[in-house]
């Protein structure tokens, strides 16, 4: 199974061939609370790493989504428009957000699972 990479802004990436699937982490969904709406990009949109590509909204909060990779959006999880709660129930699998065809390499600066867990633990201690 492909390895999952994490960002400091609480997105995850799984790469299959030259297509990256992007979602938000379990920690991110638990901080947001019940997701009520997602604003996701159109298929075909070009993303640079670090671009804001959408918004995830709960009743009392809204967070920008940052592109962890550069490339072209090739698929958007349409099922989320009717069932945004999937992001809460299954953030790492059925709650994926977009698939991006990579422009070259994955890029650098990702955390592995242990590194991300350490980031979350450090963040919740103060």
């Amino acid at each position, binding site marked *: 199974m492909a390895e999952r990479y994490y960002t400091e802004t609480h997105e995850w990436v799984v790469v299959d061939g030259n297509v990256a699937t992007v979602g938000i982490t379990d920690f991110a969904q638990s901080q947001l609370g019940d997701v009520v*709406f997602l*604003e996701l990009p159109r298929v075909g949109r070009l993303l640079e790493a670090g671009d804001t590509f959408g918004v995830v*909204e*709960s*009743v*009392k*909060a*809204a967070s*920008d989504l940052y592109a962890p990779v550069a490339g072209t959006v090739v698929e958007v999880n349409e099922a989320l428009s009717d069932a945004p709660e999937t992001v809460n129930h299954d953030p790492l699998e059925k709650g994926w957000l977009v698939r991006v065809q990579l422009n070259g390499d994955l890029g650098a600066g990702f955390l592995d699972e242990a590194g991300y867990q350490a980031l979350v633990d450090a963040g919740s201690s103060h």
Partner: protein
Amino acid sequence: MPYLVHSPDDRRQMLEAIGVGSMDELLVDIPGRLRLAHLALPAGLSELETMTQVGGLASRNRVYDDRLSFRGGGVYRRFIPAAVAAVTSKPEFYTAYTPYQPEASQGTLQAIFEFQSLIAELTAMDVANASLYDGATAVAEAAMMAVVQTGRHRVVVADYLHPEYLEVLRGYAEGRGFEVALGVDRLGEDSAALIFQQPNFLGLLEDPSGLTQSAHGAGALAIACVDPISLALLSAPGEYGADIAVGEGQQLGLAASYGGPHVGFIACRRDLTRRLPGRLIGQAHDGQGRRGYVLTLTAREQHIRREKATSNICTNHSLCALAASVYLTYMGPEGLRQVADVSFQRAHSIAARMSALPGVEAVFPERAFLNEFPVRVKNVEQLLSRLDAAGILGGLPAARWYPELDGVVIFCCTEVNDSAALDHLIAAMAQ
């Protein structure tokens, strides 16, 4: 002192409970050089004296008889049912706060939900918000929605949008960084929206279907600024396919009050809902299945989204929206139509009688109007002062905003101008 509740003994007890000897000990964080010795304002007055002073100022103003007022330009005399003030003067409504705690605010929440519904019905749009400040800021907010939605940075304005709305729009555009271009011919691939007013500032009817098609043809949104009472007779924005409808709701039960407070409204297509500024009230249910209402889609708003909010608006004009709701509920569809139709018929009657007077002529004789219309006269100043002497607030001189319309006066007529008042106006003009 009025409105203060503590007795000297209360104050002493409270200081004691806090554990300080004086007020000054509570103000220690304020640098000494900032402390003020006293406010240079007159000493307070008794209620009797206060009202004498305030009443004195009120009496220095001239109030024209409603029947004899023929000036509009965005603020109109209309019959206001007694029910409106009876509802808005209920302290449970006017002294409540923004309904943050829904369990203790269902009255306000349901009233605003009804306002949203009434505006959506009137404009034939999918969704309306809980209200805005006024018609001018409603136009500006709609323009900003269009800029965000289309990613384009030019907003085109058709001729004779209310000049003050245009001025306010320009200020918002300058701050937010988009361009305002005048004239439908400026519409192009770079346009975010076309804004037009129906009827326009002169009272003339536009072709809203044609304008909407032009906007859509350029890939821009169509923003219709509409007179809410006119919508009883005229095609509604939703009927001709406008994307956003805005307007000023003063005519729906609010006093002229020297220009405010009144109420702006904004309504849109469903897919633009999340771009709306300000409060939105939605239906919800509690654990027992009881229906109630809550502030909803709040993640658009400034208190959550901060610098990324759709707008900075926080306060709406709830109490004015309540007045509008009572007004529309009182009128019902037939009553509203009657009000609009009586205004329409009387305005056309008086326009015809005016045109028959020597020295008065229609300015755009080929253009249709509803209940406000421009005429050209020989001497505006003289005419208005003659009317004034007869107790009449005459029409609005257009040259103040449009130099090319020198000699033009815009008259308006509503259901409050009865036939005796119309005769009086014609007699005074004929002198």
